[in-house]
């Protein structure tokens, strides 16, 4: 953003229908440094709010409402002409903050894309059309004759997603299925010979896909620019700001064990009982029982254990002890050891993988044979009851936990479990399995100390 010092120019040209910015180029605007930070923090509030909403499992229409409210609340500006600038500047500042690791880019990309999706739906039809044109989404509409041919199928699809096909406004576009992956994934379109029949009101998905691609490329580019020049060029102005923003607002990622740095193999069973959150405890027990976990489970538990402080050698020994009982030591060395070293950054791209956050675990989709995921979200009520009983959650607390689960507040349910098991409150709430672990250890440690003195 070398243009910060340059002349003030309008961010949007006058002859265009006012619509959403696509953040194609960094703004050439004069902004006070303090505003930079404030704008960025405001936008971060919106993105975090969306992220929380998603991890609570809110439905699309609830999310739409939430995003709209968050936007109105945080992104307004006393000076109406500044609103668009605030939008653009805050986006670019956060882009710098979040361009620096794969994990951060992923999060930012998915939150910004969600935000864009919700905002797009609130645009006027003219503005929506203008955006489509910007993305060169010039699809053919389905002709009347063709429409009559596939009408039955289209109405079947409409009914399958709880809508009805009103023939009056039934405008459909024929789009290569590759361009609407999320509509394909959720079977919300009829597909014939590679062409998806996309209803006018689904166009949002087309636009969002384009936006996502654009932003994803831009983030990779920003990352390169950041390391190659911006960090150095801006070392007196922007860089400190970016760095403070990221340290104060991103929260720890738990990739490096910090407190209680070590956990040894001989204690691991005991520690699993006392301090693992249910998601990890379940995987741990399943592994002990079946001597096997599928890939999703190995990743979720493996990275958690890394974050908890299990050393690579111990991790290898630990997994090997179990797996070799099922598949034999040789197959373990051949097929599974690689993955474990990989988690520790010793193979492949050699990046250190970060332990999964609750949000990531909650939004995963375990399939047949899988044990990963968040039990509060992915267990049947009956199984969850049994599991919580085993953890020693009393009947009364159990009902509270299940109440939260029914309302899809999975992390709150986990927090209540934590409180029930440890007999203390946990005001911060549970956001990360490794945080659960650390908080638990702290409590146990301090009560041990209290006992011994």
């Amino acid at each position, binding site marked *: 953003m070398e243009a910060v010092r340059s002349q003030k120019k309008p961010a949007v040209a006058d002859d265009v229908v006012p619509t959403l910015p696509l953040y194609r180029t960094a703004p050439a605007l004069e902004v006070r440094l303090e505003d930079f930070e404030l704008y960025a923090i405001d936008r971060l509030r919106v993105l975090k709010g969306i992220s929380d909403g998603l991890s609570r499992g809110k439905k699309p229409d609830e999310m739409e409402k939430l995003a709209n409210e968050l936007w109105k609340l945080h992104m307004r500006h006393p000076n109406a002409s500044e609103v668009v600038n605030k939008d653009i500047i805050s986006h670019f500042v956060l882009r710098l903050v979040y361009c620096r690791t794969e994990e951060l880019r992923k999060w930012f990309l998915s939150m910004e894309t969600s935000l864009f999706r919700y905002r797009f739906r609130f645009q006027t039809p003219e503005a929506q059309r203008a955006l489509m044109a910007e993305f060169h989404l010039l699809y053919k509409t389905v002709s009347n004759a063709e429409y009559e041919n596939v009408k039955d199928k289209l109405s079947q699809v409409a009914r399958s997603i709880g809508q009805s096909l009103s023939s009056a406004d039934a405008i459909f576009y024929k789009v290569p299925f590759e361009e609407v*992956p999320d509509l394909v*994934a959720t079977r919300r379109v009829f597909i014939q010979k590679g062409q998806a029949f996309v209803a006018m009101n689904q166009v949002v998905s087309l636009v969002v896909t384009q936006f996502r691609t654009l932003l994803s490329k831009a983030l990779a580019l920003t990352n390169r620019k950041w390391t190659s020049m911006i960090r150095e060029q801006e070392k007196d102005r922007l860089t400190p700001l970016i760095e403070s923003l990221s340290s104060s607002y991103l929260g720890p990622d738990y990739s490096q064990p910090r407190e209680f740095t070590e956990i040894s193999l001989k204690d691991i069973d005991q520690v699993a009982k006392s301090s693992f959150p249910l998601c990890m405890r379940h995987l741990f027990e399943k592994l002990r029982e079946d001597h096997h976990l599928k890939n999703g489970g190995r990743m979720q538990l493996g990275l958690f254990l890394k974050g908890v402080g299990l050393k690579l050698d111990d991790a290898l020994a630990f997994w090997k002890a179990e797996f070799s009982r099922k598949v034999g030591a040789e197959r373990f060395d051949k097929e599974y050891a690689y993955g474990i070293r990989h988690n520790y950054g010793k193979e492949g791209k050699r990046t250190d993988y970060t332990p999964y956050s609750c949000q990531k675990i909650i939004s995963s989709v375990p399939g047949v044979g899988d044990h990963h995921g968040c039990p509060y979200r*992915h267990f049947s009520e009956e199984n969850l009851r049994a599991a919580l009983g085993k953890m020693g959650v009393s009947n009364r607390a159990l009902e509270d936990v299940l109440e939260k689960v029914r309302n899809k507040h999975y992390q709150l349910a986990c927090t209540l479990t934590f409180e029930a098991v440890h007999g203390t409150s946990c005001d911060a709430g549970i956001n990360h399995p490794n945080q659960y672990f650390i908080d638990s250890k702290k409590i146990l440690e301090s009560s041990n100390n209290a006992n011994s003195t």
Partner: protein
Amino acid sequence: MAREEIEKNGRDEMIIDGCEESKQQEQNNVIFDGVNVNYLKVYYGKFFPHADIFKWMSYGNDGKHPGCDYSYFRRREFSFTLDNDIYLRFQSFNGLSEMENSIKEKCPFKIDIGPVYSVDPAKRHAYAQGGDNVFTPVERELVFDIDMSDYDDVRYCCSGADVCLDCWPLMTVAIKVIDTALRDDFGFNHILWVYSGRRGVHCWVCDGKARRLSNEQRSAIADYFRVYKGNENSHKKVSLTGPALHPFLVRSYNEVLKIFFEEKLLSSQNLFLDEERYEKILGMIPDESVTSELRGKWGDNRRSKEDINIVRWQQLKHILQSGKQKLQGLRRCVEEIVFSFTYPRLDMEVSRHMNHLLKAPFCVHPKTGRVCVPIDPSHCEEFDPTAVPTLSKLLEELNMEGSRRESDIDWERTSLGDSVRYFQSSFLQPLLKSCKEEIEASYSAKLQESKNSLNW
């Protein structure tokens, strides 16, 4: 001739003679433990269709047309699993003879095929030094992996690695459902189905546009096929919500699943045989009054001439589809039960990512000795996994041909012949024809483009 010499020379007739010997041993030993390296040597020497695999993996880029990309084949990752459990990843080859020689020399127990990368995978380290992460997969067939061991909760005849003719039809159904959708819905044409050698099938979708799908697009297709919402720890495996089903599911149900369930699976797996089994099905009906009514009917186990599975299924359907239940949204239950028992169970992760490795066709399964032969989806009912040629059977056939050994290509006369011929004529030829057209079209488009820019 001394035994060591036989092995050193690796001369065919010697090994074939040797093979007779060890065959007898094998019969005495009862347990046939894996595949012998010497057999494999013969297999790779005489049976494995190196040239066809090379043609396939070249996708027309080995031709003479100026639009051919000669680096294409070289950028493909192969990986070998060797005898002593050594696992060689990122093998790549300059051409047919380099590939063929390497396979014959290393004699891998398993050959896996990975993606086509941006650069020659064997040289990836050299590129990695450059800083930018340029070593990345750029093309890969869209692949599917269906494994019978994922069906253990719906089959009573076998479990785990075993299959028999009672449960194998589950695979046939999977092929039909997925194959039809790949062709009719997604518009793909060049699809290869392969027996995995033991208990499942693999599918390779090879159209140009399939090879160029991004991971996100691959996931979308995988999810399009997904109806299983549960995992090991929640009840419901299939959830079909909404007032209607998507046309793809309707077609699969009407044309394949329903018929298969009612006419085959119900009786062959004895799904309603005893209390334990029918309770599993009743567990899928979320209405106490219905289930207890059915339990009442089924409690006394009177013998009748009719098949008990069919009788009970009819009773269940009758109750669920009678007027009263219709209103309560229980009708979908019948479909959910059928889907639970019959709908294809894909290993999603294999399909989602470009860089997943998948075993090459015509490998020999190291445990069963069976060759991973193609399956013709239009005749997949006829496929019998227990009749697939094994390595030792092939060698025996070859041996019987002793005198004429020098002439023809060996596979043609053996029971592998039909499989190779099917691969060539039904899969490879049409594929290469369309690859050629694609290469020519994109070349002339490029020419046109550069002409335009010159004019301008």
